[in-house]
């Protein structure tokens, strides 16, 4: 990820990660750690949520 920062790409990545994480939670499973980090969520903290 050495390319120059772009708001558009950031938003796009954010949206992609939000999608993937949302889909995972919708089926009661844990989202991918990378997606969570993209969204600013600490995966360890996420795992603490009991489902």
């Amino acid at each position, binding site marked *: 990820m050495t390319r120059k920062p772009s708001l558009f790409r950031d938003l796009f990545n954010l949206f992609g990660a*939000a999608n*993937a994480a949302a889909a995972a939670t919708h089926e009661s499973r844990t989202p991918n750690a990378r997606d969570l980090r993209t969204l*600013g969520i600490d995966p360890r*903290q996420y795992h603490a*949520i*009991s489902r």
Partner: protein
Amino acid sequence: MDTFALLLQGLSVAIQPINLLYALVGVTLGTAVGVLPGIGPATTVALLLPVTYKLDPAGSLIMFAGIYYGGMYGGSTTSILLNTPGESASIVTALEGNKMAKAGRGGPALATAAIGSFVAGLIATIALAFLAPWVVKFALAFGPREYFALMVLAFVTVSAAFGDSALRGLTSLFIGLTLGIIGIDLQTGQARLSFGIPDLLDGVEVTTLAVAMFAIGETLFVAAQGKRAPETVEPVRGSLWMSAKDWARSWKPWLRGTVIGFPIGAMPAGGAEIGTFFSYAAEKKLSKHPEEFGHGAIEGVAGPEAANNASAAGTLVPLLTLGLPTSATAAIMLAGFQQYGLQPGPLLFTSNPQLVWGLIASLLIANLMLIVLNLPLIGLWVKLLTIPKPWLYAGILLFATLGTIGANPSVFELGMLLAFGLLGYGLRLFHFPIAPVVVGLILGPMAEQQLRRALAISQGDVLVLFTSPISATLLALAALALIVPLILRARGKGQVLAAVAADND
């Protein structure tokens, strides 16, 4: 007539005592199922459908909408106090909310969630009221081919575009579509996939499938996870009221959450969860105190909670104006309309304005009821959480089968309930999404009907689907929604297609 006049007319319907009662029952039930794990708004509406078909349509629909809104409110309570989200749209709330509760700030967390939901619900419902007539005007020009293209778009977005695997999403969708062709073909009277079984001639009931998939499948899945660590309810300590600083830090996230949540709900995106994650990320990026995130930042509760309620209102835009369900709950609400012989869409706005506008107006009232129900009665809702799991799930299955038996007291129907329940469990086990199955079952036959109508007009010429600019655009969007996420996912894994995508930068 302008929107205000219509909305006022709707309000006069919504404040009739009987409709107020339906709304109250709806939001109360909705909050309860939002609080309880293992049962969400989709399941509840599905359970109630067979039980309510003798009631007044307007009242029942107002109740269903109240359940939908209430579920969004109730889910946040358990997230904050228990770190156990009552339903999946409240997971993000747990991140900061439970940290706040542990730090003795559970009161303000609950308050910002409830007031944020109220603000978002209010703005989003008004946005719905103003947006709906526009979409209706646009949709009145739709013919069979445009509707078919729209449904194809919905199929793709619900199953493949959102979600982490296009393969599993599409598989779920096609299982639903296959179930949808069971029964007598309305145009030729021939039985399809019925194998001479009379019970199958009427097709698979949406409610049976939904109850089996959601209530029974979920119960089996939870049971199979075995023992978990005991849960601790964080007592609500200190004041429920937010301080001036809390207000100052909350109002912007509420508005941002609304702006994020509403369009995501209105797009055929399948569920309110995306908006909550997006809102959380946005709040963390924009916050002056990013270091507080992960330790109980109030913005991280205010934003996502507003977003999930705004999504709920957003989902009603395509449902009411186009008859297009974009989430499991919306699909079941569509089944609710159909149970009374009503077909949501542009025509319903002209043929039955009292019902549509009464429903929209009742959402405003439901919103008001919810804030009254939720904040002062928080202790009551927390008590619900002390119901032991065995009794809770035993009760859920009792009601799950009650609806099916009430609709059709046959052993065969119960057998279908069991079979689909096992299917739902299997799908969960292998991470297949459930919503596309339900959407496929309900929308599949409608799409087929529109396609056959379109092709009958064109005398069998398939090209007719691409000669209308609207349907061509919609189909192109559907193709994009199928292909772009595939490329993105491959790129995300850092594999083959990375090069292709890099060329686009």
